[in-house]
């Protein structure tokens, strides 16, 4: 059976390659490889806990605010401190605006190019155009919106910067709250930018995607995968830390499951380029070192599992769990859910903006850090569930672990041979031309892959030098 490998798979964050086995025009098996490695967790070791908020952001250039918030939650959990009302609201505003930024950029810059021909001046636009179905007039309109999105998406980052200092890699989130104050000019600026973004989402993004969905209706049947959804919940309410605007939850095969338990999360390195304890391991107990030549391994991404099952995260999972969009599970549903979530958040942000109270504190700064502590912080990032763990010894980071959404979505097989969610979703994808499998690219990009996020792991001080 012929196997083909797509490498580089452009229009994703970081470097990724996909190998698929094609039999009679259908994908029968798939392997997803993250081929970018930096080793962030070992860089964090020995540093001041506060540094984690800023260094973990450098993992990812498009979802930096999610890492900042996850790291801050982790440290607050370890320090046992609370965040003032304003601080919580500002964090929700920052994450919401960054989510709009991410979704606009993913849909227009990375995903939609799979369905239309390249406009003039598009970067690297010379390609054989295959399976393009949109009539000329529609295509021209979407091409124009692609170019507009290059400009509009930066407005979302301006909104992030209004309360975040700068974006990407913001500079106002700290353990204990937010350093930026609640100033009326910021509120007004944020609201004005939000208005422009909401207009673009309603007038361009949603109609464009609906048109694409009309001509690519078969993609409602492609790329289903396991149907296992996981969400940690995002945008906490101030009144109750456990309650969130987007609730946490689990779906297995489309059925709602028991309450989520952090203890059931494990990591598996059987098919990843690492040496260490094999089999499912608890995140903080998992120690491994890179082993690029390891047999049977094919990715830098470790395999996270919940109760030994592979789970998918992201806008579709969140929209299912909140009940806002429950059409199906497929390539097109992932794109639609992303667009609908963008609209939903643009509306919600406007409401949350009114919760801010000027001249009230935004930060609860802890002067003396505890000598030793452990903490965990869970939030939803743009692409799904994001968790950070920390162990502090001697007021310094002793161990730091991160499981990103892309690690969930793009994970390789585990010890039991169970495929990752993307690999599973690829199985059954029809491929018309094995020399240029555009269909595979569409399935992969519906997950909004981010290899920069997915791979960042290392422990066991310098052990790799010996290998």
């Amino acid at each position, binding site marked *: 059976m012929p196997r083909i490998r797509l*490498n*580089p798979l*452009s*229009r*994703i*964050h*970081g*470097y990724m*390659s996909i190998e698929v086995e094609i039999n009679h025009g259908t994908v029968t098996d798939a392997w997803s490889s993250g*081929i*970018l*490695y*930096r*080793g*962030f967790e070992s*860089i964090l070791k*020995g*540093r*001041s806990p*506060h*540094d984690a908020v*800023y260094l973990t952001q*450098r993992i*990812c*250039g*498009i979802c930096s605010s999610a890492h900042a918030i996850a790291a801050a939650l982790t440290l607050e959990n370890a320090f046992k401190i609370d965040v003032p009302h304003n601080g919580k609201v500002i964090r929700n505003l920052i994450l919401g605006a960054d989510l709009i930024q991410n979704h606009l*950029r993913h849909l227009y810059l*990375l995903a939609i*190019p799979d369905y239309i021909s*390249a406009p003039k001046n598009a*970067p*690297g*636009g010379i*390609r054989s155009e295959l399976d393009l179905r949109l009539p000329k007039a529609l295509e021209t309109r979407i091409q124009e919106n692609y*170019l*507009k999105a*290059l400009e509009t*998406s*930066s407005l979302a*980052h*301006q909104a992030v*910067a209004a309360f*975040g*200092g*700068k*974006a*990407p890699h913001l*500079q*106002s989130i*700290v353990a204990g709250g*937010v350093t*930026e104050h609640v100033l009326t000019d910021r509120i007004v*600026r944020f609201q004005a930018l939000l208005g422009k973004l909401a207009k673009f989402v309603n007038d361009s993004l949603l109609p464009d995607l609906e048109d694409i969905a009309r001509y690519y209706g078969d993609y409602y049947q492609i790329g289903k995968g396991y149907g296992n959804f996981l969400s940690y919940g995002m945008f906490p309410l101030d009144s109750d830390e456990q309650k969130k605007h987007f609730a946490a939850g689990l779906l297995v095969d489309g059925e709602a499951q028991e309450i989520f338990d952090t203890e059931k999360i494990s990591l598996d390195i059987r098919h990843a*380029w690492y040496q260490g304890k094999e089999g499912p391991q608890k995140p903080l107990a998992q120690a491994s070192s890179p082993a*690029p030549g390891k047999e049977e391994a094919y990715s830098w991404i470790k395999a996270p599992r919940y109760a030994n099952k592979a789970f998918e995260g992201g806008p579709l999972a969140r929209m299912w769990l909140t009940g806002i969009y429950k059409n199906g599970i497929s390539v097109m549903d992932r794109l639609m859910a992303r667009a609908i979530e963008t609209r939903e958040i643009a509306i919600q942000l406007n409401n949350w903006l009114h919760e801010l109270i000027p001249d009230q504190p935004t930060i609860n*700064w802890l002067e003396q850090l505890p000598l030793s502590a452990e903490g965990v912080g869970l939030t939803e990032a743009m692409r799904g569930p994001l968790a950070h763990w920390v162990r502090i010894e001697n007021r310094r980071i002793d161990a730091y672990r991160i499981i990103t959404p892309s690690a969930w979505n793009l994970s390789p097989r585990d010890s039991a041979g169970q495929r990752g969610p993307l690999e599973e979703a690829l199985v059954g994808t029809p491929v018309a031309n094995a020399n240029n499998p555009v269909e595979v*690219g569409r399935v992969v990009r519906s997950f909004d892959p981010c290899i*920069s996020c997915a791979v960042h792991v290392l422990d066991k*001080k*310098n052990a790799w030098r010996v290998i």
Partner: protein
Amino acid sequence: MLTRRRFLQFCLHSAASVSLAQLLQPELAAALRLLPGGKPPVIWLEGTSCTGDTISLDNSADPSLRIVLEEIIDLRFSPLLMWAQDQEALDILFATMETHRDQFILVVEGGIPMDMPEAVIIGEQNGVRLNAKQLITDAAEAARVVVAVGNCAAFGGPSKGNPNPTGTKGVWQVVQKKPVINVPGCPAHPDWMVGTLVHTILYGLPRIDHYRRPTMFFGQLIHDICPRRFHFYNGKFAQSPGMAGCLLKVGCKGPITHADCSTRKFNDGVNWCINANNPCIGCAAPDFPDGGTSPFFSLSPDVNIPPGIKTTAMTVAKGVGAATALGIGAHFTASLLTGRLGESLTASEELPVTPQTCEQALGAIKEDLLAENELITRLEEGQRKLRRDVRQLRQANLPLKRRSILSLLNPLRFLRKKNKL
């Protein structure tokens, strides 16, 4: 015609008065259109990157990325933005390297993993994995000029953070045969990237400093042009992040970081780090996130002693360390308050001289730390005395003698004198 001089003026003052766009419409556009051969081809490669600089480029407000693509550059290859994928993407890459040899501009984002080439694979051809180390070096040799954007490409950045798991290096430490311009920052400001590209296209290589950074953007210390500088003069220091005042005591790295963030600001001038009441973490500094920048909220930075020992400047001074322990960090803390900062670091031409022996290094650190401690004590003592004196004067209801009070009111006067401010 748009002269180089005028362009530089725009770049230097754009933050304060006009934006790059006002210059672009219509002068720059016209100048670029007149270029023989049209827009220059650009290849954008990523090493150990987070794609943050591509995203930052898309944040470019004036000109927007759309204008950049339409009017300024012909972006042929970019892992994040390009439409083609797989073999077709690599075909574009190699065709451009071949047909535009010594003409195209190579932009590199992310560092080069020297000790672990398998860490970054850009693509695959005929079953061979093309690693970033090899491909970036090859592309650099074929390019006209290399622009390293972001701190990782320029100096190794967060990917190089101690203990540097992948052995990452900045592009200029690897590429020898072609000119490399460093545009650091985490991420680099879009104006810095676009400004450097435009200067290279229209006028050739911009003037650069010892770290190969364009002086039009990195010629000054953040601290020197900081809008909170007067708080520093007046001795009004924030006690924790989130407070007004000079953020030096909560770890601001503005005094060791060359960049014009203070006046340019980020995201179309909406905000910037210090304006958000958070100290500068030195993300454009050569050794970020080490070399005196970490811990970000501490005035006394860590010193890393290979292999794998982390300590503070204080401990080193007690005699535990070795000569290699001397980073900018130890120097920074001390020289800032002794006033040496102004003389040694503001002028980028005069870099601090590295001590030759272990004894010299330790001696220097010890000396600096003692001086620093003494100064802090004196500073606080002075402030206490001042408050007491003012209180006493008020209580006695004596007429305030203008001259003596003024001299008392500035507890940092000795700093000022030494800094020649």
